């Protein structure tokens, strides 16, 4: 579909084009305004750079000033002391920013919320102290002079030439940022913010992404600092202090956190504000911060969301092309009858190896024995049910099998391979996928994106490189898109694939979870109360779906359920747990007829 590719390509290039446009439009203005527009262009870059970290990963980043300072001082020192040409110095500055971001990201893995904010503040404060105290190199508090940019023998002295230069570098950077934010990298970041367990289950390394978000953002912050320095000609530690960090934090918040446009809008507007308010300079900082508070309270999505609302098009800035496609196709709503065999995953080679073996597993939480010595075997290709009253230990067992908890004792084997001690995120690669009792979908992403993440291949480097492929709708993207569409088709949500997942009703959300879980053609599917909260019609369709998947793909399933009727109809084998112990196992109708099982549920008969 070349037309949608073009449209998507335009959407990706648009923010960068806007930045360049602003810079070029500024040429028509007088010298003072050219200077101001230049500063705004840098602020726009800062706003965009903060989107992955502040907007997508929801991290309160207070080290922006120090990161810009690192880029500014590193590149300026190379130019003044070693005579390094500007482009090379800029590149080194960017690398310095990347390294600094990486170093800041590492401890950040362990912390969240206000502790994480504190860690960034520590970095900010210590960074400025180092710059200030290292007087021999940086000139200390009195600052350092920075010469104008010299490239290819031309000295960029005039305001015009500087503006063009800033515009080009900022636009190039914004282009890269847009590719990452709109591509699979940005989508995984959004997924993590929506649900951490829901992301981990599909191969996402939470810590690695946090570090990556820091590294990416800080690289571009350093670039912003490095191109700013020759414009203002004197840099001092104060220019990169905590107030700059706080002011920069306002850019994505006021502009709109989750799209690059938000960063652009916030950065440009807020940087222009003090200049526009020169007459009211006394009140400028007050207005600035009051505006930020107001936007947080009244318009949490920032100005971009306000604009979206006014324009009446929710999600207009994202996936516009997909929406139009979906509208065209909804006329051809199909009943999901065919299950595709396109996926490459082969069926388990040795049918004699059980899909799941749980051997002597126990787990206590403090003095509470959640599971005691449970053994369970699920043969390949079977559908196995697990029931029991609340507190029986079912969810704990599930979490142990899917890797979210470790047992105190015992073994768990998946298709013969020992799985205890292997991280939860690796389960997908082992062919194990799951759904969640409390639906763990990525609310802000489209259905299609939800399922595409379910396909796996979500390592940090894979998604970063993959984002470039996404931008051009290249072969990798199209292959994955087809697989995801197929999965959605199976559960009957293909027509709605461009909709926002959070807008679905609960029953549809559960179907989406199933689609996501089966997208990668797993060998074992774990379902945690899949029929909970759904109407009887849905129940029937779900049961049919599970049977079909089991029949056509030989997909082994283990499900927890409270809905006895559903479990009896669906499962080949049934296990009953009570107070951490396996009490009964066998064919469903036999098991529920047992008096001890009935006693557990209904009391003494």
């Amino acid at each position: 579909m070349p037309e949608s590719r073009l449209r998507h390509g335009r959407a990706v290039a648009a923010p960068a084009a806007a930045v360049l446009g602003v810079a070029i439009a500024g040429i028509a203005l007088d010298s003072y305004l050219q200077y101001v527009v230049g500063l705004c262009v840098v602020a726009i870059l800062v706003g965009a750079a903060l989107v992955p970290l502040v907007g997508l990963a929801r991290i309160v980043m207070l080290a922006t000033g120090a990161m810009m300072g690192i880029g500014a001082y590193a590149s300026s020192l190379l130019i003044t002391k070693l005579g390094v040409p500007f482009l090379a110095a800029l590149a080194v500055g960017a690398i310095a920013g990347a390294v600094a971001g990486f170093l800041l990201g590492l401890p950040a893995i362990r912390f969240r919320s206000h502790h994480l904010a504190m860690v960034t503040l520590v970095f900010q404060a210590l960074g400025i102290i180092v710059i200030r105290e290292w007087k021999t190199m940086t000139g200390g508090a009195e600052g350092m002079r920075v010469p104008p940019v010299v490239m290819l023998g031309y000295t960029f002295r005039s305001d015009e030439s500087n503006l063009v230069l800033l515009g080009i570098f900022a636009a190039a950077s914004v282009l890269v940022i847009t590719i990452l934010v709109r591509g699979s990298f940005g989508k995984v970041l959004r997924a993590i913010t929506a649900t951490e367990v829901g992301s981990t289950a599909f191969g996402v390394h939470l810590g690695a992404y946090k570090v990556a978000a820091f590294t990416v953002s800080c690289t571009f912050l350093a670039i912003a600092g490095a191109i700013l320095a020759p414009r203002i000609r004197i840099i001092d530690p104060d220019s990169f202090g905590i107030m700059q960090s706080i002011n920069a934090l306002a850019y994505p918040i006021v502009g709109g956190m989750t799209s690059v446009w938000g960063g652009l809008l916030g950065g440009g507007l807020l940087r222009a504000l003090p200049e526009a308010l020169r007459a009211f300079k006394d009140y400028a900082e007050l207005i600035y911060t009051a505006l930020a508070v107001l936007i947080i309270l009244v318009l949490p999505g920032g100005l971009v969301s306000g604009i979206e609302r006014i324009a009446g098009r929710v999600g207009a800035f994202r996936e516009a092309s997909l929406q139009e496609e979906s509208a065209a196709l909804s006329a051809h709503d199909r009943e999901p009858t065919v299950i595709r065999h396109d996926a490459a995953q082969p069926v388990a080679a040795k049918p004699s190896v059980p899909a799941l073996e749980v051997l002597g597993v126990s787990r206590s939480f403090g003095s509470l024995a959640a599971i005691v010595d449970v053994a369970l075997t699920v043969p390949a290709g079977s559908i196995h049910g697990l029931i029991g009253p609340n507190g029986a230990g079912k969810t704990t067992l599930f979490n142990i099998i899917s890797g979210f908890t470790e047992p105190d004792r015992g073994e768990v084997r998946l298709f013969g391979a020992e799985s205890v001690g292997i991280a939860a995120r690796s389960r997908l690669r082992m062919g194990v996928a799951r759904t969640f009792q409390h639906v763990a979908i990525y609310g802000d992403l489209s259905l299609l994106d939800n399922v595409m993440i379910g396909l796996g291949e979500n390592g940090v480097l894979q998604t970063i490189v993959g984002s470039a492929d996404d931008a051009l709708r290249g072969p990798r993207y199209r292959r994955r898109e087809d697989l995801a569409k197929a999965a959605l088709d199976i559960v009957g949500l293909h027509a709605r694939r461009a909709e926002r997942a959070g807008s679905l009703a609960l029953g549809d959300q559960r179907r989406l979870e199933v689609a996501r879980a089966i997208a990668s053609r797993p060998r074992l599917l774990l379902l945690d109360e899949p029929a909970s909260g759904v109407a009887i019609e849905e129940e029937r369709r779900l049961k049919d779906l599970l049977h079909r998947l089991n029949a056509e793909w030989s997909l082994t399933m283990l499900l927890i359920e409270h809905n006895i009727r559903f479990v009896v109809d669906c499962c080949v084998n049934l296990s009953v747990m009570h107070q951490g112990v396996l009490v009964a196992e066998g064919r469903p109708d036999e098991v529920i007829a047992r008096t001890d099982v009935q006693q557990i549920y209904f009391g003494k008969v």
Partner: protein
Amino acid sequence: MLPAMKRVLTTIACAVSILAGAPAAQAQQVQGVTDKEILIGAFGPITGPLSWLGQGARDGVQLAIDEINSNGGINGRRLRLEHQPAMTPAESLAAVKKLNEQSKVYLIFSAHGSTGAEAAADYFRESGIPVFNSVSVTMRLREPFARNIFNGTPLGVDILNAYYVRSALDRTPRPKRIAVLVGTYAFPQAEWNAAKPLFEKEGVEFATVQTYDLGDKDYTAQLVQIARAKPDLIVAFGQVQEVAIAVKQSQERGLAKTPWWVGPGVVTRAFPVVAGSAAEGVRSVWIVPYYHGDKGPMEKFEAAWVKRFGNPPEGRPAYTDVFGYGDMYILAQAIKKSGNDLSWPNLIRQWESLKGAKPSDFGPWAADVIFPHTYGPTRRQGNQQVTNILVEGGTWKVQPDKK
């Protein structure tokens, strides 16, 4: 896609239209000058920790301008002041560009100290617009020599520091070991860097050098180290917010008998109030002949200030008010002498011809609150006089001898 792009451009357009409100001055071949009016530009910090400094300079200049205007202006032209707020280097550059290129002022009063003034220095040299530095001691405005940059009452850090050293060591017995307390931020660092070699040349030994940060409230550690070093004199560089607290706390740390010398940034009314009894006998230098509240010209100046601006907030009028006021009158004389040829070269020529100029030379109503200024073809430092000042009876008093 499109709406957002439009929005960014609209924002810039809005900003432009707000900013373009300043009236374009009609050129009588000279920017900023019309038949009726001369537009004077100024920039400096009026918010943030240095707000008192920038506001003082601005208000001092404004007061002088109002007095001049109510006495017929200069050769039939009224003066008008346009002040642009600026704190950081980036803002300072923006401010002077706006003044020169958009508002097209006749000349610029640099009412900024520290890094702000330095950032503008290059621009001043490149553009050639006449500049009157009324606040900063930085050498970047003085070296290399620039025909269009004049320095009024504040001295360059090189000359000033020689006075610092002389003043600090001017006691009997002469101090041999001194302890230094210096702020880590730009302005006191500049003072210390210039003073240090001069102290060394005088054969003084540094018992210890302690630093503090802008905004520090507790000096226990520094004062304990200083007490341990047993100096003959403590020299402190910085501004009153920090040094006053340090001096006050020194009493508790066994330094009650050790004398202090402080940099002139500390000489404000807040100092004796905050430092209390510890302030008695603390000495510094002062670069105008009178301190606030003194009888004579200062009294006259302060009465005029109150009449124009109302009840002063604490600490005002400060020394920058005095500088701005006095320096504006010197400038007024240069403009007056230029007669009808207000071209920049002529202004500069007339300015250079001023010798021993006092505010009252312009008009008898002007208060002579600054030392006389002398300029010349290669001399751009108007004031070169410094006096000693010390705290006596809870307030600063200028010492009659001049050094």
